[in-house]
């Protein structure tokens, strides 16, 4: 053990009281910092797991004509998203990119929900090819009633969170087709008036298209679902088959694209002569049949059949992208945007945080608030430590001046002082970090859950799961080093002003 370190160590013991004061502050600060960083890491991890893995993917592709980027969970505007015009070309790019593990083209937007009295409410829909959705987000939801609609089948999955406001708007309670009413799930007022409760198996959606014309379509409800996490927030979205969404919004459907007309049919449709148009049965000759069939029979008959058209041929207004773990989201966004621009594809890639808008901002806000709190703790710690060290420096003026007198340079004295503070920082700070880690694991194992939306954001999900990673440890050590640095700045000035003459008792 070098003599300098011996001086440092023994001085710490010699000034036990002050060392302890500094140590306790550093201990508490480091502990709070560790827990705070753990919370932030947990929140970020939870956010990533619960939003990226379950809802949005890492990147969202939207039309470059889209003004606002917060295309999901934008509760204020209600404006329909701009349609991606060059989806086929975009698809080619996405298929080629090795950094993309999977992608899900979809449609998202608000629709109105109507009842027989033309009363309406609103609901958010995500129109998807359900097979691709299940492949992309296999863990995202559980079905609590009914079943998931099949690929090619018209159907909607109403979230439990959306069912209650839907009832408030249009005054009917949605139950999946073939399902039974579960009275326990009814709102209180509905329970009290069961006789007059209007129970429906389908929902009438009315979309708003870009041209502002509307179309209302009736979609059967095949199931009620619950998202795995952030249900209170994400539950505003219901899932619907993509073709129903497209129809409601006057988008081109996959079935539209599949229609191939003969030259005669095209010529017939091109005519302006109504007499000629309706004078023959040629147009409908192939599809009109003498036999009658019910809708249920038709569905049964066609179930399991492969689709006669390609769902991917219709319109989309966004696409969710999953990346490989090796690539950073920022780099991927840059790269994709560069490719899109070079190929004039009229789309842009945005991060999931931009896409979820207010939720992403709130996460940043909470993170900033936590960081500010930690910074405040350390600011107080720096001030207290600085004062204590300055007092110590003044008390030791004679001793330090004597060292200067016998040949110690200013740098030696400064190094000794910094070392004393650093030893205290890393000993007590280290203990604080260890306690912080213990607290993190205790909190994690306690499994504290919440249904509060804001707390869910803080938790990064429904359960508080702070985490501690190697990068958190490094961050903690860097923060301790920063505290040490700022704490000794002023005391070092005090020490620097000590001159050898201070060691001498004047005559």
């Amino acid at each position: 053990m070098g003599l300098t370190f011996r001086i440092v160590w023994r001085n710490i013991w010699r000034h036990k009281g002050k060392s302890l004061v500094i140590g306790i502050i550093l201990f508490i600060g480091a502990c709070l910092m560790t827990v705070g960083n753990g919370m932030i890491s947990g929140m970020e991890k939870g956010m990533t797991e619960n939003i990226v893995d379950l809802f949005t993917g890492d990147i969202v592709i939207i039309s470059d004509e889209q003004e606002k980027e917060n295309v999901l969970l934008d509760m204020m505007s209600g404006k329909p998203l701009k349609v991606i015009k060059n989806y086929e070309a975009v698809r080619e790019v996405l298929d080629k990119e090795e950094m993309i593990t999977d992608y899900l083209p979809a449609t998202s937007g608000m629709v109105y929900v109507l009842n027989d009295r033309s009363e309406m409410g609103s609901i958010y829909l995500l129109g998807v090819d359900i097979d691709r959705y299940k492949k992309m987000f296999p863990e995202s939801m559980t079905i609590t009633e009914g079943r998931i609609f099949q690929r090619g089948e018209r159907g909607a999955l109403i979230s439990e969170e959306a069912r209650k406001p839907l009832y408030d708007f249009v005054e009917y309670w949605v139950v999946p087709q073939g399902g039974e009413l579960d009275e326990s799930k009814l709102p209180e007022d509905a329970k009290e008036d069961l006789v007059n409760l209007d129970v429906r198996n389908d929902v009438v959606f009315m979309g708003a298209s870009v041209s502002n014309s509307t179309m209302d379509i009736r979609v059967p409800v095949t199931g009620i679902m619950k998202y795995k996490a952030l249900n209170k927030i994400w539950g505003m979205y219901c899932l619907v088959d993509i073709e129903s969404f497209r129809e409601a919004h006057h988008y081109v459907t996959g079935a539209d694209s599949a229609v191939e007309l003969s030259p005669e049919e095209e010529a017939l449709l091109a005519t302006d002569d109504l007499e000629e148009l309706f004078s023959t049965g040629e147009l409908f000759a192939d599809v009109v049949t003498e036999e009658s069939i019910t809708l249920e029979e038709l569905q049964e008959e066609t179930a399991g059949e492969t689709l006669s058209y390609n769902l991917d041929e219709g319109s989309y207004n966004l696409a969710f992208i999953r990346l490989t773990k090796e690539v950073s989201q920022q780099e991927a966004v840059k790269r994709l945007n560069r490719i899109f621009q070079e190929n004039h594809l009229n789309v842009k890639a945005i991060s999931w945080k931009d896409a979820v808008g207010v939720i992403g901002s709130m996460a940043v806000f909470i993170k900033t608030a936590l960081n500010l709190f930690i910074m405040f703790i350390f600011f107080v710690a720096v001030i207290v430590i600085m004062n204590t060290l300055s007092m110590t420096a003044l008390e030791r003026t004679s001793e330090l001046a004597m060292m200067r007198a016998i040949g110690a340079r200013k740098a030696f004295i400064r190094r000794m002082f910094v070392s004393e503070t650093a030893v205290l920082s890393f000993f007590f700070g280290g203990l604080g970090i260890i306690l912080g880690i213990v607290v993190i694991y205790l909190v994690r194992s306690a499994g504290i859950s919440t249904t509060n939306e804001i707390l869910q954001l803080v938790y990064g999900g429904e359960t508080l799961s702070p985490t501690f990673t190697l990068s958190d440890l490094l961050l903690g050590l860097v923060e301790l080093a920063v505290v040490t640095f700022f704490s000794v700045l002023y005391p070092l000035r005090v020490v620097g002003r000590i001159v050898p003459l201070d060691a001498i008792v004047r005559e």
Partner: protein
Amino acid sequence: MNVIEVQGLKKDYPLGKTTVHALRGVDFLVEEGAFLSIVGPSGSGKTTLLNIIGCIDQPTSGQVKIHDQEISELNDKQVTDLRLHKIGFIFQSFNLIPVLNVRENVEFPLLLRKVEKKAEINTRVEKLIEAVGLLDYIDHKPAELSGGQRQRVAIARALVGAPDIILADEPTANLDSETSEAILKLMRDLNELEKTTFIFSTHDPEVLKYAKSIVQIRDGMFVGQE
């Protein structure tokens, strides 16, 4: 050969609206291997003179040369290195490092000099501690030593780096007569053995019998030399 040359040395201290003239123009030369005593009553300027020669205070005017090097031309680092390598200090109030034991206090200047050979350090340190008669107290802290023992540690510390000059400001002022005599005898022996130049201040006539040469100072001026 002169190790110290002092010319027209003046030192003023402002004291409120007045100025105290601690040194009023001192000239003298010190030869290598001298054992010089500066004698004078309290307030005569002895300590101020030693502080300036030892590069821990600066003159108001005048010149001090150590080994022909004008010290006012040196920067802080150079002056510090000069103190470390050329000058040893023995303070009136001992000024030991309280957290270090006798051995560590004595080896401290060698640490500053970055002498890396541990065996060499140990030999030198132990030899000096033995010379000052403190081998039995080698692991004791300053607080566990008497005034005389502390002063002997200070002497050993001043000598450990084998400096050219040792400045001692009233080294026996806080000691009893028996210890004072032992300390002075030790300094004299070291002067003769190591040829180290000693300059010490005192106002004790008993101390003077050990000095090879004496200068008298009064009111900041030399008034006699023997």
